[in-house]
């Protein structure tokens, strides 16, 4: 039931990350409204205060903007900025780990299949 949450970060951070991942896939697209706090609380079975905290952190990062009386909307250029943030995070946090593993396995760029075929 709570399988969506792990111990790596506070729950509101994990929800913010999940929502950011969806924004990156264009869900919802730029300029479109986010689901309401209530809808998200029901969908993820978490307290609305935690949902508000997650949305607020996405506002602070400039990916969402509150519109008076209408709720949260995806900002223009949010996708591009998210992509840049994700790229930076990948190169800083994930790539060194992946590179070390590739080195240990003795794998180089030529050994990897860069086409999306089986």
């Amino acid at each position, binding site marked *: *039931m*709570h399988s969506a*949450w792990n*111990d790596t970060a506070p*729950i509101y951070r994990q929800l913010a990350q999940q929502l950011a991942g969806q924004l990156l896939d264009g869900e919802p697209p730029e300029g479109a409204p986010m689901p309401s706090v209530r809808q998200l609380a029901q969908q993820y*079975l*978490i*307290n609305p205060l935690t949902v508000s905290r997650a949305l607020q952190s996405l506002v602070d990062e400039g990916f969402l903007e509150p519109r008076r009386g209408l709720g949260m909307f995806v900002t223009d250029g949010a996708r591009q900025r998210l992509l840049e943030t994700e790229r930076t995070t990948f190169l800083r946090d994930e790539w060194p780990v992946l590179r070390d593993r590739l080195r240990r396995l003795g794998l180089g760029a030529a050994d990897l299949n860069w086409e999306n075929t089986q």
Partner: protein
Amino acid sequence: MNTHPLVEARNLTLRYRRGKRAALDDVSFTVPKGRVIGLLGHNGAGKTSLMKALVGLKSVEGELSVLGRKPMRERSQLLAELSYIPDVAVLPRWAKVRDLIQLMSGLQPRFSPERARQLLRRTSVGLDDKVKHLSKGMVVQAHLALVAAIDARLMILDEPTLGLDVLSRKSFYEMLIDEWCDGERSVLISTHQVEEIEALLTDVLMLDEGKLVLNLSLEAIEDRFVALSHHPDAAAAVAAAHPLLRYRVQGGQPAALFDGEPPQQLAANAQRFRPSLVDLFVALTRKPELAPRSQA
């Protein structure tokens, strides 16, 4: 709507027998509006006694105000103004669900029969079902729908998920979020399903042998308690820093839970993670089997 807390409890103490350990020992807390508060504790920690005190079914020492009333003196008014499901909740077995709605309409001035029927439509319970033919999970769902149809600002639930299967628990949590998380009403809920309910809570009250060992919002818990997973070689250094709890995380990596910031040197060589409520519960409450037996 006024801004007074829904519950104000100061120095609550309950002693069943002179000289015996107190069932509630100097317990103080407040319940503001718009909160979902988990009341956690081992069996016999005092959860049920505290809930009974709140609704005026148990007399306690100390100062207690619930919805601005003194529970012992104004019990009947209070019971008409809040929603309460005791741990031994039983609905009359001979009754049909339809009869219960009628019964509640007569007993509870703030009860809405339409609301109850609307809530019941989301469950698998039918209006013409007899209580004795319902499963345990369905009885709880029916009970909860009846109680949630009371227009009350405070709901007190004593182990509502006890004995329910996973699907019934899920629909209970959904109902809790849909019906009670509106920023005005507050819920006090005791449970052993700590992991499942963690994400639904705003605050935690933890009782251990009648004493309140934790009274914090989940946000404050994240700020105050630090969990570190570390290399086995660091075990001695970790032990020397006196963590609240030493345990293992998934994958067998040793971990330690600290109240406050651990020594900097330690933190630099370890990985920080989110302390779960279950780990905190284990750290802060004594296991009953480890408690020294009193020589009576």
